[in-house]
């Protein structure tokens, strides 16, 4: 598929920017339409504490079968209009692609059974683990690690996956350092150059696999990037303004999947999703309050404002009073979606969206940059950039300006510490040279370490 560059917003009007509706809705053979007006639950579950190896893999398969049965049963009882199940394969299931493929088959078989016997419409998203890390990584785009990831994608695509996603990690180590020091230049380099180049190669190949197998290349997420910042900010370790600006920069990176041909819905944990939707028009999956089973955030309501799928992130299989955790999460998501869809049916979806927005946006900078009006303002600036680096810098600068404006007009509360960091980030941004080659040379000289070898990205 030819590369696309998004130079215009797909959504220009705030009234068109709402949950359930995406300009580029996706229709499936079973009748589900993502982005066509209905928000569906996307349930994600994982194994309880256990090791996965050749001695235990059959137990893991049994767990997945039981979890899927429980989720489908509960979804059927609650009369959902449609359901998405996501399996984020555990690392061993990508290191051993045959295990990931077998898991895909098992889960899909249960889903098909419920569809055939009970009319439960469902779709399966498979997310292999990006295992391209570690001391023995030869290169990001060739060698053993790359082959494992691609073999897993291909095998899962051929054996029941409807949607393909990944939480890709190109540039992550560098970004981790950037976050720990709130080092803006390093963060910009990791996202706008290193991660951007990796996303191009990675998604070009994922899209090819999806096309060959006639399934959907859905999208990526900045989980390894801005979610690290977000969680550290929630724990008070870094400023929330940094996590907010990082999130907006990550939108440029995640959108590269769409430039390469991904058509959504992107991955649930990509809180940059609203930017992807505004610019590309593709539907998005989001998570928020119902993902508190996996991690905390300060944006649990606002995350739903423009979501097309509503997810729980991931829950480990455990018994609680209400049943097994995947079933409980299903129920929580179903009720969230039912309420949002009812507001839509009654013509009040914009009211619902605004309540979701207003209940969070004032209290946290990361929540604030997810406000639909703010997203449109910033997205409008991002698309003016000609390169990924330029777009990343524009994203950061526009986020700084919007956050400052929000504080000054009383729409966002920030304390002095946060404001100091906002000023510091702003001045760091000013010091990044406009010349891309000069910037790359400087960054490589000062950041080539055991953890980041530019040669593995063909940069140098």
């Amino acid at each position, binding site marked *: 598929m030819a590369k696309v560059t998004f130079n215009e917003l797909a959504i220009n009007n705030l009234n068109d920017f709402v949950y359930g509706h995406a300009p580029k809705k996706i229709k499936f053979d079973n009748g589900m339409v993502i982005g066509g007006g209905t928000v569906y639950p996307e349930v994600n579950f994982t194994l309880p504490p*256990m090791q996965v190896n050749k001695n235990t893999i059959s137990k893991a398969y049994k767990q997945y079968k039981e979890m899927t049965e429980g989720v489908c049963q509960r979804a059927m009882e609650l009369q959902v209009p449609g359901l998405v199940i996501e399996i984020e394969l555990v690392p061993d299931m990508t290191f051993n692609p045959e295990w990931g493929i077998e898991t895909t088959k098992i889960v899909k078989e249960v889903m098909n059974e419920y569809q055939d016997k009970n009319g439960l419409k469902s779709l399966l998203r498979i997310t292999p683990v990006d*295992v391209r890390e*570690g001391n023995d990584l030869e290169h990001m785009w060739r060698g053993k690690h790359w082959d494992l990831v691609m073999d897993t994608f291909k095998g899962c695509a051929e054996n029941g996956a409807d949607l393909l996603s990944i939480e890709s*990690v190109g540039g992550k180590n560098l970004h*981790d350092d950037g976050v*720990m020091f709130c*080092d803006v230049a390093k963060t910009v380099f990791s996202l706008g150059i290193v991660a951007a180049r990796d996303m191009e190669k990675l998604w070009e190949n994922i899209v090819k696999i999806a096309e060959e197998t006639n399934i959907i290349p859905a999208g990526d997420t900045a989980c390894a990037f801005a979610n690290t910042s977000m969680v550290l900010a929630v724990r008070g370790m*870094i400023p929330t303004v940094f996590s907010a600006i990082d999130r907006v920069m990550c939108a440029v990176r995640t959108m590269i999947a769409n430039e390469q041909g991904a058509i959504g819905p992107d991955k649930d944990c990509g809180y940059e999703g609203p930017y992807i939707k505004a610019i590309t028009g593709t539907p998005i999956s989001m998570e928020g309050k119902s993902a508190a089973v996996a991690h905390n955030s300060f944006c649990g309501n606002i995350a739903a404002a423009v979501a097309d799928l509503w997810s729980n992130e991931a829950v480990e299989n455990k018994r609680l009073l209400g049943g097994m955790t995947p079933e409980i999460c299903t129920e929580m998501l179903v009720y969230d979606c039912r309420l949002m869809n009812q507001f839509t049916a009654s013509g009040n979806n914009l009211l619902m969206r605004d309540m979701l927005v207003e209940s969070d946006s004032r209290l946290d900078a990361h929540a604030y940059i997810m406000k639909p009006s703010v997203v449109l303002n910033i997205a409008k600036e991002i698309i003016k950039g000609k390169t990924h680096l330029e777009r990343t810098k524009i994203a950061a600068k526009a986020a700084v300006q919007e956050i400052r404006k929000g504080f000054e007009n009383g729409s966002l509360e920030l304390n002095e*510490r946060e404001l100091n960091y906002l000023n510091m980030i702003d001045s760091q941004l000013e010091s990044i040279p406009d010349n891309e080659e000069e910037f790359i040379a400087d960054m490589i000289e000062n950041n080539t370490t055991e953890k980041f070898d530019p040669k593995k990205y063909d940069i140098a």
Partner: protein
Amino acid sequence: MDREILNELTVALQKGDAIKTQKFVKIALKKGYEPEQILTEGLVSSMNTIAEKFKKKQIFVPDLLLATRAMNAGIFILKPKLKKQLFSPIGKVLIGTIEGDLHDIGKNLVKVFLERAGFEVIDLGNDVPVNYFIEAIKKFKPQILGLSASLTTTMYGMRDVIKALEKEGLRENLLIVVGGVPITESFATGIGADIYDMDGTKVADKAKEKLKCSNF
């Protein structure tokens, strides 16, 4: 002797400005301050203030890291001039993430806090096989081993490391600290770990305390 230069040094360090910290250390030396005085009254006392502020959540991790970097830059100038080695690590820690687990930012943060507390930390990185831990323990002879896991499917790898240590006769003189998102107190106790805290920032203090009470 006026203390103005030490005050300026304090401000530079607390701002995390390594270049100015070095500059003021050099000026202080020229003005005739003893290197030991610059170290204790300029660098160390400022760093202690920073650490206190961090504990009280008055500053962020980057502030702590930048101040640490500035302190080390100052020490770099002072080191050749110090009459005796004032700093010796309070203990040696070997740290790593369990095999199959590629998450390491939590482990990296704990490493920072351990170093800040005065430990020498040897970081084996992530995705570390059991035999690497064993070989590294034989080689580096640490008093503390830190194990990190962020997945429900890798957390039992910690138990495997502990069992292998027992088998090799290496467990006895070693404190084991475990941590990571899915780890709980009861899990830590159950696999035979010595130290656990849900809050990574508290691990260094606990390790210090436990090490004091042990004989190794």
